[in-house]
């Protein structure tokens, strides 16, 4: 499979199929016969992979399980804290989508490779190993938050993890992912950039500009479309003439693949493969299909979908899936998994206490971080 894609990269398969052999500056010949354009896209369905074939040990699996559960419990608590008005502004929960963040984080070299995403960013932050403390404190708007209380839920950042943020303008960060990848290639440091965005972002022109740039300059980036079926209240089919997002890859002569985001194994299998390609400067587009259980934000009652739809998706829950796998394969016991849950809950509870105690940022800090220049003359 890998070799097939490599061939494409050299421009044999894709380009010739479109009737455009490489190497000619001008293409003036119009063929007499209709042009048939053919493209193959890999798929990574759920339930198709075993931990052995992914080379994951029992310990790896438990760590993956723990990480997904940490995201879930963290956000459940965050929702409660929002209700108590400890958290303000927008709070967008990732619950249901944890296999995407954890699977992706387990497929890169954290701290070496880069990650950038949109505002639904708590999951990936915790997947990259940011602490519940610094994340919860940011939600509380406290000085010990990962962004010193300046950014809030939508704007988590962590330089040491090469996590270039949570971003609030739909699609706006996608070219940044391309630029981060550009810097990796420029420095030849072997790093890649995972660039996450939602299905809704596919409506932004800048996303398409970014894809073309990445493909044109052969940059080490993997575009990961987290297709959770909705952009706020708009179902994908109501907003796109072509809802098969992986296919957009073909427009930019990149490989594209479709991945089931409710199975962390499928995510790991796919992201590893395309990260490896990116290291050889072949960008790609992964459409990962997933589902958000909660409303778009805390104020959204999600009336645009049926209970049945939600319940059906919950049956594919990525955490429950991994739990069943562990039990079925005799890799763990209910007791052990419950103990992990207990630990995670404690960790999250501790993060709430930590955030309560953490001070608010001092008022003078409002003028910090605007410029690097220390004595910038602000207007009073």
């Amino acid at each position, binding site marked *: 499979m890998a070799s097939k894609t490599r061939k494409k990269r050299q421009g044999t398969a894709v380009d010739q199929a479109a009737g455009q052999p490489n190497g000619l500056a001008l293409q003036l010949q119009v063929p007499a016969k209709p042009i048939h354009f053919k493209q193959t896209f890999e798929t990574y369905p759920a339930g198709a992979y075993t931990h052995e074939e992914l080379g994951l040990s029992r310990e790896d699996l438990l760590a993956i399980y723990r990480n997904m559960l940490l995201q879930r419990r963290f956000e459940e608590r965050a929702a409660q804290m929002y209700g108590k008005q400890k958290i*303000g*502004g*927008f709070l967008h929960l990732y619950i249901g989508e944890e296999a995407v963040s954890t699977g992706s984080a387990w497929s890169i070299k954290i701290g070496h490779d880069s990650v950038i995403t949109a505002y639904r960013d708590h999951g990936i932050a915790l997947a990259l190993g940011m602490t519940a403390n610094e994340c919860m404190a940011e939600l509380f*708007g*406290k000085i010990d938050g990962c*962004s010193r*209380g*300046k*950014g*809030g839920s*939508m*704007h988590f950042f962590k330089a040491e993890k090469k996590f270039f943020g949570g*971003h*609030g*303008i*739909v*699609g*706006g960060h996608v070219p940044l992912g391309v630029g981060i990848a550009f810097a990796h290639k420029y420095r030849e440091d072997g790093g890649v950039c995972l660039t996450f965005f939602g299905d*809704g*972002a*596919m*409506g*932004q*022109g*800048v996303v398409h500009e970014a894809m073309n740039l990445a493909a044109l300059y052969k940059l080490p980036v993997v575009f990961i479309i987290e297709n959770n079926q909705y*952009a*706020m*209240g*708009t179902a994908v089919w*109501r*907003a*796109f003439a072509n809802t098969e997002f992986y296919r957009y890859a073909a427009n930019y002569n990149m490989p594209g693949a479709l991945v089931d985001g409710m199975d962390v194994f499928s995510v790991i299998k796919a992201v590893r493969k395309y990260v490896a390609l990116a290291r050889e400067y072949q960008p790609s587009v992964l459409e990962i299909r997933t589902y958000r259980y909660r409303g778009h934000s805390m104020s959204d009652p999600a009336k*645009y979908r049926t209970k049945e739809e939600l319940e059906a998706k919950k049956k594919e829950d990525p955490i429950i899936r991994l739990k069943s796998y562990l039990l079925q394969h005799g890799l763990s016991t209910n007791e052990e998994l419950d103990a992990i849950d207990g630990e995670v809950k404690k960790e999250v509870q501790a993060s709430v206490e930590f955030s309560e105690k953490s001070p*608010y*940022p001092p*008022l003078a*800090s*409002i*003028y910090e971080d*605007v410029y690097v220049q220390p004595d910038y003359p*602000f*207007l*009073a």
Partner: protein
Amino acid sequence: MAIMQFREAIRAAMIEEMERDERVFLIGEEVGQYDGAYKVSEGMLKRFGPKRVIDTPISEAGFAGLGIGAALNGLRPIVEFMTFNFSFVAFDQLVNNAAKIRYMSGGQFKIPIVFRGPNGAAGQLAATHSTSTESIYSYFPGLKVVAPSNPDDAKGLLKSAIRDDDPVIFLESELMYGMRGEVNEDPEYLIPLGKARIAREGEDVTIVAHSKSYWIAMEVADRLAAEGYSAEVIDPRTIRPFDFDTVVQSIKKTNRCVIIDESNPFASVSSEVAFQIQQRAFDYLDAPVLRVTAKDTPAPYAKNLIEYYMPSADAAYEACKQVMYVD
């Protein structure tokens, strides 16, 4: 007269104008099936159908441009931005196409379009979701900019904006949508663009404030009144064109002025108003014009910082006392 929420007044203006004129339609994110992200367009899809209430993908540059194109070709679109923060991805459409095509075509085309939606900060939404855009859009000749402070003005001004033959940026606020007030129900009730409202007459100091800041001005005027000072409060209602005459007339009486504006201070509405005042009323001023604005920084998330960031009634009160030389 009826008591209406701000959002209902805007809805009423849109409904009346759509019933009056076939060419008017509404387009934007979540305006139809979702009934509006802030429920401004609630029920409008049902009433007018999908031909005239149109849901879009998250493609601001695309649908803003679509609106301008439709206006060039004879329609009168209302384009809703979920918030004006997102108008920045459509900036080229607004400032190059909407603002300049009439000029560049030597007057062959007109662009009767309204871009509307919430503007400015609305709590702990952090830096990208808290921008006050009135100074930015007022910069561009070719655009008109309106920023009402209450439901009645919202209705009367929006109707005028929709009937106006030039592109209008119409700035609302998430925090005001629930505000109630008396609204004139006459379908021909129009408030002219470019005309300020003297909301409260006074002798001792003139306070100029639009949109949410207007309510700070009224609060400060009350506090001053309790101490025996009378403030004249002017709500400009339209930022471009700006009714400088009304402000200057007032200053000739009070000899002092404080401007309250949620924008960042540098090169902002308050800068221009203060400039015009010193040029037109220099001899009448007994004190420098002061202003109370957002801080000269991006908007922070933390609760204490965003409160500190926003112009406050306390700061405006202090500014008034300062120009009156009392403590």
